[in-house]
């Protein structure tokens, strides 16, 4: 079964001033897959993820060029051209980071935060969305009785799942994961891995990872980023089902 291409990059470069961080990157990624990017640190893996939600927007001297297309709402969009307002783009392209970053407020308020930013007022709609996202993140049963306690009191793994749920509440089509398990213990990391595999039916996942075993377990495509160049990796990826 041929899947629709969600992401197309052709000769995309990224610059900090005169330094070329990403060098002529070309790749095609199908929808509803997990794509992993590996490689030594300091090679621009996080920068690569940032191409998709313009994370470098506020950084002076940062600049991207080349051909890039992602499909949002079945409409091709070029993040690096700024043909979509940044907040809009970031609602459709979610991101979680290496260190879970819940805000110092209650679980419920953390979850409602992106909805508030998007200007969604309807309370029952909000609550339904929050419940659904927390369920998707395997967190609902653990926190449903303590939604109004501080998010900072959760365990590390729970915090990361909360951040994931918080990103999912906006129903993004693409999810960027910057080493999502590297600050977690083995058990918590396993839960997140399992979660990502489940989530790929809903969104296309791009992740950066240091862990070859993890990549082998969950990724459909694997790339290696070295000296700013992106190459298919030797690490065998999981075969697409069907």
């Amino acid at each position, binding site marked *: 079964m041929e899947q629709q291409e969600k992401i197309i990059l052709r000769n995309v470069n990224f610059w900090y001033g005169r330094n070329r961080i990403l060098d002529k990157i070309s790749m095609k990624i199908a929808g509803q897959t997990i794509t992993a990017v590996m490689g030594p640190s300091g090679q621009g893996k996080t920068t690569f993820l940032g191409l998709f939600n313009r*994370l470098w927007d506020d950084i002076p001297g940062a600049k991207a060029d080349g051909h890039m297309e992602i499909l949002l709402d079945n409409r091709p969009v070029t993040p690096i051209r700024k043909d979509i307002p*940044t907040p809009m783009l*970031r609602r459709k392209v979610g991101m979680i980071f290496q260190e879970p*970053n819940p*805000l*110092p407020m209650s679980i419920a308020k953390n979850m409602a935060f*992106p909805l508030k930013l998007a200007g969604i007022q309807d309370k029952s709609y909000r609550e339904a969305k929050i419940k659904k996202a927390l369920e998707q993140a395997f967190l609902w049963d653990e926190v449903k009785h303590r939604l*109004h306690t501080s998010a900072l009191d959760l365990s590390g793994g729970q915090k990361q799942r909360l951040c994931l749920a918080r990103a999912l509440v906006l129903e993004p089509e693409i999810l960027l994961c910057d080493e999502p398990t590297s600050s977690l213990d083995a058990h918590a990391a396993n839960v997140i891995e399992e979660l990502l595999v489940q989530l790929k039916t809903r969104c296309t996942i791009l992740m950066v990872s240091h862990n070859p075993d993890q990549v082998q377990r969950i990724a459909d495509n694997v790339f290696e980023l070295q000296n700013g160049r992106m190459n298919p990796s030797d690490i065998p990826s999981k075969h697409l089902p069907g």
Partner: protein
Amino acid sequence: MMRTLMEKTITFLSWLMTLVLFSVVLFFIGYLLHKGLPVLGRSLVFGETDPMQAILGRARVFDGLFPAVMGTLYLVLLSTALALPIGISAGIYLAEYAPPAAGRRFGFFFDILAGIPSIVIGLFGFSVAVFLHKHFSGRISPCLLISALSLAFLVLPYIIRSTQVALESLPAPIRRTAPALGATRLQNLVYVLIPHALSNIVSGIILSIGRCAEDTAVIMLTGVVATAGIPSSLLSQYEALPFYIYYISGQYADQAELDKGYGACLILLGICAVLFILAGMVKKHLTHRALYKV
């Protein structure tokens, strides 16, 4: 051998210098307490007038520091209220919006502003008052409003810098939390960055209030006088504690007046000490959590 001798000498001298510095300052404060404490009391501030009547504005205080204390209070409130919105906004611009080159250029101006001697700021305020007097309204002359404007200008760079530094020192994970969830820059500022930086911003503001309270050079050119009573409007002349101290040091007529000068010093020092301690407490205890109410 030479080397260790030198090292020993430097060690000894360092401790000695530290001792000298703190002895001098402690002696100053001790002497002030010795001279000022006996005078401190109701009659120092209110003279013969009933304090309640004075505070309610029903009776004038002729023989006490009350008008000077109130003048300083008005000055501090007015100039802080004037400087805060501009200072904080400019600090936000420098920290969050300015491209690096513009940031450096603005930084240069604000460094100069921070370094301009306060008497020159006072001279500027005075010149503006004279200019307005000549060209706009004969009613305008050096007054409470002109002083407050000049003082606001004096503390502006401190408010700008403390806001800027407080925002810039926020770590990257906090900065990118809200943008990754689709926040605009303004939303990020309002919901995340300012709440997280608030304790440092407030502590900077409190320290600049201290500067408003203690500055003498600015106000002596812009409307403070030795006797004016409590100012009736923004355009009237006024009294202030630091100017009173300056005035007494040259013009005291008898021992009683001199003693009042020591009392005024003690009150002013007390105000500055309280502000200093307050700033420290705010820095330590006013966390951003208080703002989010969990």
